């Protein structure tokens, strides 16, 4: 029994954290979130050079041949930085479906953008940016190339989502996987998004604690008030109990555990709740300044409101766990 990451995994996490601290400052997040700009593509290219984008692709296709347990801490960092880019869609979900095909190589090297619309939502992240999409038809996953779909932008509260509704033609698309792989893909998407939410929540807590230390009212830092302390403690409590649940789910997918879908649902339920609590606490502790568009905190808060719903919200995932645990099999 051992529930910890390896030194290699932690070192890679630190490398990505440092990279994002340098290359993905809040100013970049803000401009991408508000303008549907293209600055994320340069960042995406650098991330591909680091091996992060193609982490889950086979080495023969330019990837690192790694799995969800290697990826999960990196996803958390992309959440902490509110990094724009389809890391969940491409790296966590699409590449494991693409196997060792040409599209895997193109996606792994950032030569092509491959996104996915597999969670049952009518809206596909990066749908207007993708060179290919993986979409559901019946129980199958189809690969739909650029000329076989049209994307209509849809505004999410979180501009980084770059949602589009997709009009497409199943007839000119190629089947790449069936229902088992689709179920796994959904578990991968849920866990990856859960990991991002943990990072977003961690950043919201950090920002909020710093603000509570500095902001003074009634002659003292507001962080000395017990109500503010308890708000922050509650957010931390949710986060610290979400993390191991998320890591376990990544482990279960990595090892093909028969309960991996249930573990993935637990992960998304906990991370969605942790994100929502962190966002609420962050806003309440910041007060009016946190309500302004000028303050960076809101970029992370909006990320929560989008990601907590993506790949199923907390209540939906709890119901999936209930079906597995409570109902007679």
């Amino acid at each position, binding site marked *: 029994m051992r529930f910890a990451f390896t030194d290699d995994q932690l070192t890679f996490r630190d490398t990505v954290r440092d990279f994002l601290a340098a290359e993905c400052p809040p100013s970049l997040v803000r401009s991408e979130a508000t303008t549907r700009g293209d600055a994320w593509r340069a960042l995406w290219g650098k991330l591909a050079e680091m091996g992060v984008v193609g982490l889950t692709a086979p080495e023969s296709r330019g990837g690192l041949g790694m799995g969800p347990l290697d990826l999960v801490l990196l996803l958390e960092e992309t959440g902490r930085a509110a990094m724009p880019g389809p890391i969940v869609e491409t790296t966590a979900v699409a590449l494991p479906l693409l196997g060792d095909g040409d599209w895997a190589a193109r996606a792994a090297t950032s030569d092509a953008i491959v996104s996915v619309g597999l969670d*049952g*939502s*009518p*809206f596909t992240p990066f749908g207007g940016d993708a060179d290919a999409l993986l979409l559901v038809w019946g129980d199958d996953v189809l690969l739909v190339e650029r000329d076989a779909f049209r994307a209509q932008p*849809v*505004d*999410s*509260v*979180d501009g980084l*989502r770059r*949602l589009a509704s997709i009009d497409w033609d199943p007839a000119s698309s190629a089947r790449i996987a069936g229902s088992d792989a689709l179920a796994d893909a959904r578990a991968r998407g849920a866990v990856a998004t859960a990991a991002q939410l943990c990072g977003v929540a961690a950043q919201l807590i950090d920002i909020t604690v710093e603000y509570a230390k500095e902001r*003074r*009212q*009634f002659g003292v830092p*507001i962080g000395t*008030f017990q*109500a*503010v302390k308890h708000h922050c403690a509650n957010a931390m409590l949710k986060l610290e109990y979400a993390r191991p649940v998320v890591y376990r789910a990544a482990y279960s997918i990595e090892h093909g555990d028969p309960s991996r879908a249930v573990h993935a649902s637990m992960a998304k339920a906990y991370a969605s709740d942790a994100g929502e609590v962190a966002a609420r606490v962050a*806003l*309440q502790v910041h*007060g*009016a300044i946190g*309500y*302004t*568009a*000028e303050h960076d905190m*809101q970029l992370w808060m*909006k990320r929560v*409101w*989008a990601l907590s*719903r*993506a790949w199923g*919200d907390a*209540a*939906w995932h709890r*119901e999936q766990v209930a079906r597995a645990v409570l109902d007679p099999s």
Partner: protein
Amino acid sequence: MAPMDLTDTEAEAAFRAEARAWLTANKPREPLPSGNTAAGFAVNRDWERRLFDGGWAVVSWPKEYGGRDASLFEWLIFEEEYYAAGLPQRVAQNGIFLLAPTVFEFGTQEQRDRVLPRMAAVEDVWAQGWSEPNAGSDLAGIASRAVRDDERGGWRLSGQKTWTSRGAFCSHLFGLFRTDPDADRHRGMTYFLVPLDAGGVTVRPVDVLDGDAAFAEVFLDDVFVPDDDVLGEVNRGWEVAMATTGSERGLSLRSPGRFTAEAERLVRLYRSRGDHGDGTLRDAVVQAWMDAEAYRLNTLQTVTRLSDGARIGPESSLNKVFWSEMDIALHEAGLRLLGDEGERADTGWMKGFLFSLAGPIYAGTNEIQRNVIAERVLGLPRK
């Protein structure tokens, strides 16, 4: 005392019918845009002018100031009908609900005659100038100051006001300024009425979560205000201002009609969308509907007390916590009912959710309100 009666009296029923008929005949065909943009503000102002022309802008005011001497119950009825008709909160609200009661209570006859009719007619639109960069929850931390100008018979105001709702579009500001820098924190402030086109005033719009410029920062640099625009006594501004915070927290800014109308909208959404088999969502919807009703009932109790001559006290803090947390829960339920569309930026539910999030912050944070409940309603020691 008459026995409890939760139905409209004949007069109230007639009033309700008249209000409903007028609103049905006169309300804009299309939903009004948000009043937090320059263009939207103008459209709303036009509508509110029409409301005034119809005699419905300030129903509870005396006739001479543009009202119709309606009772508080009739005011509640009007609000119910107004929101049930799908109409939005008014851009004039901070004037008519917060400043006006203060002018009625503390203003001179000259001030009443000058300020109130133009306010009712939306010729002047008033912004609230309480908060400052270092005076948020700690309102007594106000640092903006007014220096006596005996020569011109008035005061020179300097400082910065912030989080001023729709400040970029309003014509006037009411606010507190420190007139005796040597006095205690809660003393030495004076309540001023300031035209925003006065020399030395700079207004900077501030965008909020939904992207609209709902806030403004107001910079005052040696702005002259004549003695006629001091409301109440000099150096007694805190007491004067507190008279409106009760209104802000409690009754008037959040009349139940808005929430019962929103709750009905939520029920319609539930009926059209269903709960996706999510029993907790069904429960959240019915709780929101019941809470709006509970708020209405609580308000009816309060209005009965006020009609019997009581004044609103610290229990207004209970109302503020209740409506602000109810409003968020109601809109969260709405977003959940929307399912995958819940994250869309362009739905009324998302707009309403973002707006609701300000509730626990403004008019005194809910943390401060809970302190007030504990200390002033329950009698727990301050320190």
